[in-house]
């Protein structure tokens, strides 16, 4: 989003010159009811089991992490907050020295940490605490045992899933180089639950594509290589910066739908198969069992969702591909699809299937958006945790968006699970007689 598209700090329906003749976007500016990028730590620390995330921030950051995590599940999770205090800000102590002290103590206590992310927050960004410098200095001390990287998950720069984008983008420069003469390799980009990742790896193996890497890797110290012969598939739609960093290292994106539902997953796998010169007949043969299983599973859910009207409030940037799936494969009617940020290039093919009446919105002015929800009265509204119960209180059925980020929803074998996430609140609404 360039500053020019948001002129006056208020809601503005501005047309961009290109492409928007056919697809106007309602661009809004106001209160955003979304998490900041720090929240990504909650799933990233589970995915990268040798990594630790140290937020350099305030008590608010620490409180956000424990509140967003829902419950304090783990006694000592692989994340923590270095809470800045008055003396750090008043210059009574050098914040960089303090950070060294905290990091050294942490690494002493947790010898299992192999990668440490210093994560910037709103306050650390505002006081311009240079975490890149800190990472470099501390890295010089602790390498090779611990690699120290940094990125920002601050709310003044990142929205929710953009935290993962920033984290993965920070990993790209330290990925080993794939030589120019090396054979082509496939890279799957975006954190997926291990079970889903394994399903995809099996599909690619069946296609004869065996040189496949994943970013993030389950072990952050065993990163896949990247080079001019890397072809990457985005598994998540919120990875703009990571994609740019990969392109910077010579990798090329395989354009495809995102792997949600039967058609999204098929398109995603087919695109890679084509890129790697796999015989089309073999591709269809490999896809057939998964497609069939998903078709059967979805046929039970389609009657529950068909014709139901749905609105998405901006949350995770998953909104556009999920809306495409719900419309094309389950027959739902899209009322409004809101997203915190619309990556036009990565979503171009997804947007093709939206009819002219689908209201596409970017950014948020939460009060006006809720006014629209009340006027539209969709059958189901996808929104954040802060809004779900209040909307239910007004008689509107909701689905918490955060569950879409935490649950395995990609691929053939999760297509019905994904549909079920939307069907269950509707079924419950019909079931209850109180």
């Amino acid at each position, binding site marked *: 989003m360039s500053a020019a598209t948001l002129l006056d700090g208020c809601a503005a329906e501005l047309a961009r010159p290109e492409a928007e003749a056919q697809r106007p976007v309602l661009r809004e500016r106001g*209160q955003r009811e*979304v998490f900041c990028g720090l929240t990504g730590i909650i799933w990233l620390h589970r995915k990268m089991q040798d990594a630790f995330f140290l937020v350099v921030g305030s*008590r*608010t950051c620490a409180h956000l992490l424990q509140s967003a995590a829902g419950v304090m599940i783990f*006694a000592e999770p692989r994340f923590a907050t270095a809470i800045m*205090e008055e003396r750090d800000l008043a210059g009574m102590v050098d914040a960089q020295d303090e950070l060294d002290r905290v990091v050294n103590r942490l690494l002493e206590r947790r010898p299992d940490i192999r990668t440490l992310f210093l994560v910037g927050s709103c306050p650390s960004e505002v006081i311009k605490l240079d975490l890149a410098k800190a990472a470099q200095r501390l890295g010089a001390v602790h390498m090779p045992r611990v690699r120290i990287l940094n990125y920002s998950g601050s709310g*003044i720069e990142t929205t929710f899933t953009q935290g993962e984008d920033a984290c993965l983008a920070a990993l790209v420069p330290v990925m080993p180089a794939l030589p120019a003469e090396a054979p082509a390799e496939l890279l799957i980009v975006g954190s997926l639950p291990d079970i889903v990742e394994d399903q995809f790896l099996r599909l690619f193996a069946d296609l004869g594509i065996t040189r496949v890497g994943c970013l993030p890797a389950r072990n952050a110290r065993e990163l896949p290589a990247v080079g001019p012969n890397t072809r990457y598939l985005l598994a998540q739609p919120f990875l703009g910066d990571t994609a740019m960093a990969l392109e910077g290292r010579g990798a090329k994106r395989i354009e495809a739908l995102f792997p949600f539902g039967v058609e999204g997953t098929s398109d995603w796998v087919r695109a890679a198969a084509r890129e790697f010169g796999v015989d089309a007949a073999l591709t269809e043969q490999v896809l057939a069992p998964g497609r069939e299983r998903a078709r059967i599973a979805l046929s039970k859910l389609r009657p529950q969702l068909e014709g139901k009207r749905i609105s998405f409030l901006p949350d995770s940037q998953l909104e556009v591909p999920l809306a495409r799936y719900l419309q094309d494969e389950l027959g739902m009617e899209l009322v409004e699809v809101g997203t915190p940020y619309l990556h036009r290039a990565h979503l171009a093919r997804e947007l093709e299937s939206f009819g002219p009446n689908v209201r596409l919105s970017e950014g948020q002015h939460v009060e006006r958006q809720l006014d629209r929800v009340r006027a539209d009265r969709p059958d189901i509204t996808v929104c954040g945790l*802060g809004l779900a*119960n209040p909307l239910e209180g007004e008689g509107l059925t909701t689905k918490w968006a955060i569950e879409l980020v935490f649950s395995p929803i990609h691929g053939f074998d999760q297509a019905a699970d994904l549909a079920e996430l939307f069907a269950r609140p509707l079924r419950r609404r019909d079931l209850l007689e109180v």
Partner: protein
Amino acid sequence: MQLAVWTYEGPPHVGAMRVATAMEKLHYVLHAPQGDTYADLLFTMIERRGKRPPVTYTTFEARDLGKDTAQIFQDAAREAVARFNPQAIIVGASCTAELIQDDPAGLAEAMGLPIPAIPLELPSYQRKENWGAAETFYQIVRHLADTSVTRAPREGRKARANILGPTALGFRHRDDLVEIKKILSALDVEINLVAPLGATPEDIKTIGNADFNIVLYPEIADEAARWLERTFAQPAVRTIPIGVGATRSFIADVAELAGADPTPALGDTSSRLPWWSRSVDSTYLTGKRVFIFGDATHAVAAARIAREELGFEVCGLGCYNREFAREIRAEAARCGVEPLITDDHLAVEDAIAAACPELVLGTQMERHIAKRLGLPCAVISAPVHVQDFPARHSPQMGFEGANVIFDTWVHPLVMGLEEHLLTMFREDFEFSDEAGASHHAAHSPRKAATPDPVSEAPVEDIPAPAMAEEGGTLWTAEAERELKKIPFFVRGKARRNTENFAAAEGRRQIDLETLYDAKAHYAR
């Protein structure tokens, strides 16, 4: 910088939100970046509120810095007043906005709004949630109270009281209030105002009409009550009516200030804790070791109930709010334990493991600690999770609150009669320790089939003292076998006591003799 994994208290603006959310027709304009809206879910998810907290977040971004963040604040404030039509707003900054120094107070004043705009200075890098709630409530009262009111003479009218302290997200505040109202009604005392919960800014104006104040939660209301004392010469009842004894003192205090007869309120026949505690089944509660941690007010009250009304032994006592450390120190001295004043949950965990309690009374944090140590636990204080906002009436205060406390604390323990049966049958080949007590399978310590660091550890895995770690197993096989014959729910303590005894006596080995010497040594 302080390294923190979990925190007992949020930042001070969350305290302000608790006050704003409790009140009606008040709106909070909070200068904050996106992301700070996470705090809404505390209220809508944990407390299951069906309404959004009345908070507008200005949502400035990096590119606004140094340009028009002040304008963004004013636009947001203007829009909030127009949309929500509040009787007053409170304005302030979260931690990030505090750094950019936009001065929300000055900005709001310059706007010439048609309603009062109460400025809040909540230093995020020094203070925490409870302090923020107290300061916010104090500022609201100070700005809105009509200081010109004069109370009519007491003759020919009922005494009037303000009930101060209940907020949103408070531990059982909703239900406590019901019990307090019941007591005041029995004493024929009129309620002038309950605040913050349910009060409007217009209501606050009339706060001076009461003859006295009742400070239910000092963490939140004490600051305001002291100002009211000075301004309106309103004395305050500061006895916290948690427990039977405290409830009786509370009734006496209120009756004295109201000039009322306490007898009808004292004679409440629904007070069951005294008999439940005296009945023979409760004999087994005698001397149970209990570790207590929470906010100071609830922790002190819990310690008194534990000692005086249930016959427990308090083996640890502490609080996370330093502001009220004095109260904890005084009570800890009465219990004969070292007070633990800390907001570091790892320090609390260490203290609990070292104290080897039979019951932990604490917050959500201690619930997790106890679960990992395999100890029974009941929650007595904020911060709490969604299961501690029950659908049923479940107060802590008043006689009914004491009834609830009896049930809640005793339930996680093995029942009295059952304890004897377990002892009787422990040699039976069909009896398995791991089955635990019959009435609460979910609470009983069990050996996990596969060791999992996250799930509850069996009682025996309480960290042993240093000597055992150094010297490996000190126990003879015979003594180890004998230890296994002790019921599981006391085995951890027996092991621990024996090892401490052996260490103190300088014995190199724990054999049968040492085991029984230790038993004699620790005999109650």
